[in-house]
Each structure stands twice: as structure tokens, then as C-alpha cells.
């Protein structure tokens, strides 16, 4: 036993898979110690991009520090001049007859663009109405506002904030180089993966969902493996009519896709009665067939080996023969089958959730439900919120990847012909 374990952990594939899986598992277990947020609590409305959010109100109320940041003005301009504005500047310069071949809307070319703008923009000139495309009053006003924005972007500008109303109002002046310290702001929230369509913190939700999906996979995998093992042992060792009946059932269910069975059972259950455990159990009892068939064929080949016959002659009980003379020989196979069942259980839940047949969505998040929400609320297309679905896909892929690696690693240890 000890030797086998050592061999297994010497397989690089198994080791890498095991480490990835353990990292995922530990993250799921440890994360809730540090972040106490309810994974289903909505923090805002709709998708928020990943980042740290500070309360504007509290930031104004926090002590300020003077920081002379040399590139402050440039940064402020970069942030406040959207691509459309920069394009308009280029268009204007072009209309003025300036060579714009070296200019574009990127941040790197910002400085060149500003130099060219300051050299060539003249309000009086623009008023003369002689440039194509900038003939209307609205366009000229837009240009003037743009010019104001650029002129007032230096770090010496001030802004006045009025607090309260009427006579009680106080005015606070904020300088261009006033800074607040992030951890002094009373209300700030760090959302490394933004929020989803319900405004839930995606990272917290993802960690919780990963845990639930792993649980579903483990329950489904255990049930499928135990059922398969039981049926396979019975059919293989007892044989006879029992074998015929069990294999008749198994043959039917090998051809009818498990996916179809799951759709029929899940839709018959209705959304309210689909709890996490129910879902997992159903996935388990619809996917035992492959394990049963393989266990059966291995048991049949073991049944007539000498050591089994010796056991029989010694009058050992059926239970003892199965546990001591047969199970150890198929144990490695059963472990591998279990690993694959866990991975396919997680996948089955995700696929069913994508079809709208997932576990009850009001209870707990799962990876599949998160994908389904992302789809329903247009994260792929209209909102383009990559943080709502891409990490989910990666987590699913990493889980199956690590389980597959462990499986091939075990395969190489136990089937030496496959060794590289």
C-alpha cells in the first residue's frame, strides 16, 4: 500500500493534477475565513468591472495628503479624454491641414497629439467656420469644451465640493494634487472579478459555486462508483440469471444517452424540488453503467484465478472473498473510474444548468448556474462582461484538467505499457 502510494506520487502527471486540485479545494475551504460576504448578496445593479470601488462621498470626507505626482496631469487627461474626443482632435487637425500621419488615439501618442493641438487650435480661428466637418455651432462648441478640458487638466486646478443645503452648506476645496489614502476611506470594496448581472461579487460567488460543484461531483461520483461497483461485482461474481438481468439493464442504458435521461428526470422534477443533493444523486444514479460493465469484465477474469479458488475451497464467505481476493485487484481501476465520474458529474451539472435545468437558483450558486446567468443577461454579447463567465469556464476546465491528469498519472502507474 505504502509502496503503491509512493509510486503514484512519483508520477509527475498525477502530482501536478493533485496539486492543482488541492489548490482549488483549499481555496474553496479557506476563502470564507477571510471574506465573510454572502455569495448571493447583490452589491449593486448589474455588471461592475473588476477593480476597487471607493465611496465618492467618503473620499471627499477623508483627510487629504499632498502628493506631487509628475505625471498627474497626463494621467488625468488620459482618463478624461475618451477615444472619440481624441479622434475629433485628429479630425480637426487634419481639417486644419496639419500632418496627422504620426498621430493616433492611443495613450502613447497622447503627448504628440496635445503638442499638435496646443500649437494649432485657436478659438477665433475655429469660429471662422472655414473647416470642413466643423461648420456647425454644436461642433464648434464641442471643440471649445474639449480645449477647456485640456487646458484645465494641470495639477494646480481646484474643485469645490458643496456639502449640505442652504445656510448650513459648507464648501470644501479640493486641489488637483490632493490624495486620499485608500484604507482611510470609510467605504470601499475590492472586487477582483467585478460583479455579475445581479450585482453579486463574482469572486465570492465563484468560490462558493466551485465548492458546491465539487460537492455535486463528489456525491455523483461516489454514488455512480458505488452503484457500478456493486452491480459489477454481483453480475461478475454471482453470474447466472442475475448477471443476465443486470447486463440487460446496463446494455439499454449504455446506448440511451445519460444526458437525455437527466433532461427528462430534471424537467419532470420541476425547479423547486431540484436541490443540490437531489441533482447530484440523480446524476450519480444515471451514470453507473460504464463502471459496472468494466468491473464486471474484470471480476469475470479474476473469478477463476487460483487464489480465488483456494479461498473458496477454504470455505471463506462470499463477503470475505470479494473484499480480500477481488477488490484489491480492481481497486486501482475503481479509483480511476471514480475520478472520471467526479469530473463528468461536474460537467453534467453545468450542461444541465445551461439548458435551464440546474439546481434551484435561489438557494446556492453552482458553476453551471453562473454560466447560465451570464448567458441570460448577455454577458457574452451585449454587456461584454468577461469577468462573469471566463473565470467560471477556467475553473471548470482546471478541475477537469487536474482530475484528468491524476487519472492518466494513475493509468501510467498501474498500466506499465502506457509509460512514456
Amino acid at each position, binding site marked *: 500500500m505504502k509502496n503503491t502510494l509512493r509510486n503514484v506520487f512519483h508520477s509527475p502527471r498525477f502530482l501536478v493534477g493533485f496539486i492543482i486540485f488541492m489548490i482549488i479545494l483549499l481555496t474553496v475551504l479557506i476563502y470564507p475565513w477571510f471574506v465573510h460576504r454572502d455569495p448571493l448578496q447583490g452589491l449593486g445593479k448589474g455588471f461592475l468591472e473588476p477593480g476597487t470601488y471607493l465611496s465618492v462621498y467618503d473620499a471627499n470626507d477623508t483627510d487629504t495628503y499632498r502628493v506631487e505626482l509628475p505625471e498627474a496631469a497626463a494621467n488625468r487627461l488620459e482618463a478624461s479624454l475618451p477615444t472619440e474626443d481624441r479622434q475629433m482632435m485628429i479630425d480637426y487637425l487634419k481639417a486644419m491641414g496639419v500632418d496627422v500621419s504620426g498621430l493616433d488615439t492611443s495613450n502613447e501618442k497622447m503627448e504628440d497629439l496635445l503638442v499638435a493641438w496646443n500649437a494649432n487650435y485657436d478659438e477665433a480661428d475655429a469660429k471662422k467656420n472655414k473647416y470642413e466637418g466643423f461648420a456647425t455651432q454644436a461642433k464648434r462648441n464641442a471643440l471649445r469644451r474639449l480645449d477647456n478640458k485640456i487646458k484645465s487638466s494641470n495639477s494646480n486646478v481646484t474643485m469645490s465640493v458643496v456639502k449640505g443645503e442652504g445656510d448650513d452648506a459648507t464648501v470644501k476645496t479640493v486641489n488637483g494634487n490632493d490624495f486620499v489614502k485608500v484604507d482611510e476611506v470609510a467605504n470601499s470594496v475590492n472586487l477582483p472579478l467585478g460583479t455579475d448581472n445581479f450585482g453579486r461579487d463574482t469572486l465570492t460567488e465563484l468560490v462558493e459555486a466551485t465548492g458546491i460543484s465539487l460537492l455535486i461531483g463528489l456525491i455523483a461520483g461516489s454514488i455512480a462508483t458505488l452503484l457500478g461497483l456493486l452491480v459489477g461485482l454481483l453480475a461478475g461474481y454471482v453470474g447466472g440469471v442475475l448477471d443476465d438481468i443486470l447486463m440487460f439493464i446496463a446494455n439499454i442504458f449504455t446506448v*440511451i*444517452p*445519460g*444526458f437525455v435521461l437527466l*433532461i427528462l428526470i430534471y424537467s*419532470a422534477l420541476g425547479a423547486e424540488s431540484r436541490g443540490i443533493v437531489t441533482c447530484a444523486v440523480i446524476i450519480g444514479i444515471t451514470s453507473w453503467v460504464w463502471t459496472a460493465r468494466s468491473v464486471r469484465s474484470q471480476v469475470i477474469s479474476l473469478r477463476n484465478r487460483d487464489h480465488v479458488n483456494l479461498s473458496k475451497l477454504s470455505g471463506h464467505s462470499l463477503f470475505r472473498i470479494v473484499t480480500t481476493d477481488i477488490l484489491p485487484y480492481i481497486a486501482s481501476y475503481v479509483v480511476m473510474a471514480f475520478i472520471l465520474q467526479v469530473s463528468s458529474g461536474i460537467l453534467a451539472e453545468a450542461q444541465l444548468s445551461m439548458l435551464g435545468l440546474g439546481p434551484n437558483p435561489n438557494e446556492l450558486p453552482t458553476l453551471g448556474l453562473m454560466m447560465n446567468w451570464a448567458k441570460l443577461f448577455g454577458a*457574452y*454579447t451585449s454587456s461584454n462582461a468577461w469577468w462573469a463567465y471566463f473565470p467560471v*469556464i477556467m475553473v471548470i476546465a482546471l478541475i477537469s484538467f487536474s482530475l484528468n491528469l491524476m487519472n492518466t498519472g494513475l493509468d501510467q502507474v498501474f498500466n506499465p505499457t502506457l509509460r512514456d
Partner: protein
Amino acid sequence: MTKGMRKYFKKKIFWFVITFIAAVILNFILPRLMPGDPVNSIVGKNISPGATQEQVQEQIAYYQHQFGLDKDIFGQFWDFVKNAFNGTFGVSYSQYPRLVSDIIGSSIWWTVALQLPAILVGWLLGNLLGALAAYKRSFYDKALMPVTLFFSAIPAFGAAVILLVVFAVNLKWAPVNGAFDPGMIPSFSWKFISSVIAHYQLPFWSIVLISIGGQAVGMRSMSIYELNADYVKYARFLGIKDKKIVRYVFRNAMLPQVTGLAMSIGAMVGGALVAETIFSYPGLGMSMYAAINSSDYPVISACTLIITVMVLIASFLLDIIYAFIDPRVKAAQFD
């Protein structure tokens, strides 16, 4: 046809018929175990607020008669089988009085036209790549193997979403959803066909990509196993050319891959159906998705029955093909 083959075919046809019957029975029974009465919800939707108790009862009786729910379970089963064989699949619950065949009629062909070529192309490409990786066994194999394993671990819908976001939403190389421009009426014009082809690309390649990974990994280990077999070593000692040996190895490694395809085709179709819904491709996956969201059980069970029958036929055909390429079946020694 040898005796062994005949026996093999008989056995396969027997199992085809048995599983077919089992599939029909399961499709009938499982939706009827559901909680809640579909008729009540339809009546609840359609009846005017001031209706008396008798009117409600009358309506319920009317709809129960329409759906054949007033008959006993055997009568219902007979209706179900009859409807399945004449191809109408009964009346839809959510879009009463439309026939189910009306709703899903065209979607079958979209699904077949999408999935059949995609799964075949993916299977062929995957096997070629796997065999190549096994034969070369070089740096590329070692470096690419983990990458391939990782990519084959990405679920079908994940690959579909990534393709959709990269190529349709961001690069705008392909349309985002549907099977043709929404403004078009299906016809045999060049414009319509080119629109269909443009919409076909992303769903097609996402299914191909999904199937390549798994097949390549399987084929590679099968080929490595065969390359280490005694007959290969013996053939090498005899000085038989590598090219010829590779042909034998490939053929022997192919056999389990054909059976593997027969066994995994159900799961592959399942994944591909979900991928369809990502692209809003008007196939069975989309019909099923819509039906699930409106609790339209006749449509769901029609979809699942059609999928099951398609998978049954596909694996039956693969079994037949297997008989022709496996010399053991030909030699009448097959179990």
C-alpha cells in the same frame, strides 16, 4: 457474409430494437412523474378573471380531452406511440393548439446538418493528430500533451462561449447568433446560402474543437500501446518498412476508437446541443431550451426521443462499420 457476421448483426439489431422500446417507454413515463398538472396552468393563463367554478371545470375537461389526458395510462401510451410514429408528437402545451412537429420540424435538420459533419471532422482530425503525436514522440509531443489535455478539459459550452466572444463579438468575423440573417426568407438564392455558411462556421468549429481534444488524447495512448506491442517489435526485427508497420498500428489503434465513438456519441451530442444554445442556432438544443423554459413537456419529450433515436442510429451504424473493419468479426470469432 459469414456466419459470425450474421450472428453479430442479429445481436446488434436485437439490442437496437430493445433499447428503442426502452427509450420510448422512458420518454413516456418520466415526464408523467412531474409534479403539477399542465392543464391547470394553461387554463389559469387563458381563462377570464370572472369565470365561475363550472366554467373552469369545463375548460379543464376540454383541455384534458384535447391532450388526451382523460384516458387511462395505456390509452395515453397508445396515443403517445401513435403520435411518435406519425411524426406529429401531439399538441404543444405552451403554444396550444400548435402541433409539436410544427415547432421542432425544421430544427432536426439544422442539428443533423451541424453535428454530423462536425463530429466526424473532429473525430478524424483528432485521430490523425493523436496518431501523429504517438508516432513522433518528440519534444512536440511532450510539450503539446499538457496543452492538449488542458484544452480537451474545456467543456463544450466553454469553447463555444470563447469562440463566440473572440470571433463574433470582438473581431466581428462571424455573426453572433442564428442560422441565417433574421431578415431573410429561406430560399435557394446565393445570398441566403452564403448567410447560412457564415452562420455555420462558429458552431461547427466549436464542436470540431471539442471533439478533437478527447479523440487525440485517446488515439495517442492507443497508438503508443500498439507501438509497444510484440507484433511491432517482431515486424521491426524482420525489417519490415516503418510505413507498413504504421499502417498496421494505425488500423489496430483505430478499432477501439470506432467503438469509443459509438460509446461517446451520446455525450458528444449532449455537449453539442448545449453549444447550439450559445449560438442560438435553431436546432434541437434551442427548441429544447425554449421548451424547458416554458415547461412544454410534449416538446421536451419529442426532442429527447429524437435525440435518443439519432444516437441509437449513429451507434448502430458504427457497430455495422466496425464489423466490416474488424477482421475478428469477419473471421467469425467475435463474441
